[in-house]
C-alpha cells in the first residue's frame, strides 16, 4: 500500500518516544497539528490494512530474558517440515527462510539461558543438520526503528 505524506509523518513520529501519558494521542495531536480523532482513525485504518506490525513497548530481550539467533542448514525439500517443528516452540518468535546454505534463521527467547538451550537441544535432537547458535555480543543499533522515506 502507498502512504500519504501525512501517514508517513505520523508513522515516523510514533516509531519511538510514544508518550507515557494518560492521553498520549492528544499530546501527539498537538505536535502534529491534526486532531486526536483523526490520528486514531488513521492508525486504525493502517492497522486494518496490516501496515502496522506492532504497536506498544519493545522489550529488551537481553534484559527480560535470554535470547539467541540460530540458523539451520536444511535440505530444500525438508524446509517446511523443519520450520513447522521449529515454529511449535513459543520461545521462537521470528523464523525466516533465507537464501543461503544456512537457510532457516530463527530467534529464540526464553526467561533464561537454559531455556534457550533447551529449545536448541530439542531441535538438534530431532534434526541432525548443521546448527549455528549466535547470541548477541554487542548491539550497535537494536530495533529502534528507522525513518520511512
Amino acid at each position, binding site marked *: *500500500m502507498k502512504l500519504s505524506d501525512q501517514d508517513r509523518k505520523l508513522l515516523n513520529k510514533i516509531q519511538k518516544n*510514544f508518550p507515557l501519558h494518560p492521553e*498520549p494521542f492528544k499530546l501527539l495531536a498537538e505536535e502534529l497539528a491534526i486532531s486526536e480523532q483523526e490520528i486514531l482513525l488513521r492508525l486504525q485504518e493502517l492497522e486494518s490494512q496490516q501496515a502496522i*506490525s506492532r504497536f506498544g513497548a519493545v*522489550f529488551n530481550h537481553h534484559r527480560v530474558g535470554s535470547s539467541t539467533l540460530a540458523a539451520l542448514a536444511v535440505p530444500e525439500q525438508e524446509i517446511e517440515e523443519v520450520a513447522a517443528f521449529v515454529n511449535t516452540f513459543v520461545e521462537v518468535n521470528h*523464523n525466516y527462510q533465507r537464501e543461503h546454505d544456512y537457510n532457516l534463521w530463527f530467534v529464540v*527467547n526464553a526467561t533464561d539461558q537454559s531455556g534457550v538451550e533447551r529449545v536448541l537441544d530439542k531441535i538438534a535432537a530431532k534434526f541432525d543438520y548443521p546448527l*549455528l547458535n549466535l547470541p548477541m555480543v554487542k548491539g550497535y543499533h537494536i530495533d529502534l526503528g528507522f525513518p520511512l522515506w
Partner: protein
Amino acid sequence: MLDPVLVKKVIAATQNGLPICDRPYRTIAEEVGVDESELLVTMGKMLDQGLIRRIGLVPNHYALGYRYNLMTVWDVEDEHILQLGQHVGDLDFVSHCYQRPRQEPDWNYNLFAMVHGRTEPEVEQQVQIIRELLGSSCLAMTQLNSLKILKKTGLRIR
C-alpha cells in the same frame, strides 16, 4: 525500586501491544489491576532501566513496499569492530546491527546488519555504502535475502 511481580504482569499485559484508542494505558492498567498512574510510573522506570527499549509503533515494512529485507553479514577485523560496528549501526537504513560470535569454520562473520529497501538497486546501493565504510577491515561478506517469513510474533515470556 521496581516490583518484579508487577514488571512481569506489565510485560504479560503489553506483549501483544497497546490498543489504539484514546486511553491505551488505562486499558492495560485495568488488565494488570493497578491505577493508570501507577502503570505509567512503572513503565517509565522500565524504560529508564532499559527493560523497555522503546514505546512506539513498528511499521509492517513489507506491506508498506519495503519488500527487500536483506541480512548482510560481515567478517570484520576484531580490533576495529567496536568503532566500525557503531558506524554501520548509525546508518539510517540499518534497522538492526549486532556483533555476534564467529562459529568457525562454518561461520566466520561477526557483524550483522539488517537493511531494508523498496527496490533491489536501492538495497544494493546500501550494501555498497556499508562495504565502503568497512573498507579493508572487512575480510569477507555475504548477504542473505529473505525468501519467506515463516513466523513473526512479539516477545512471549511466560
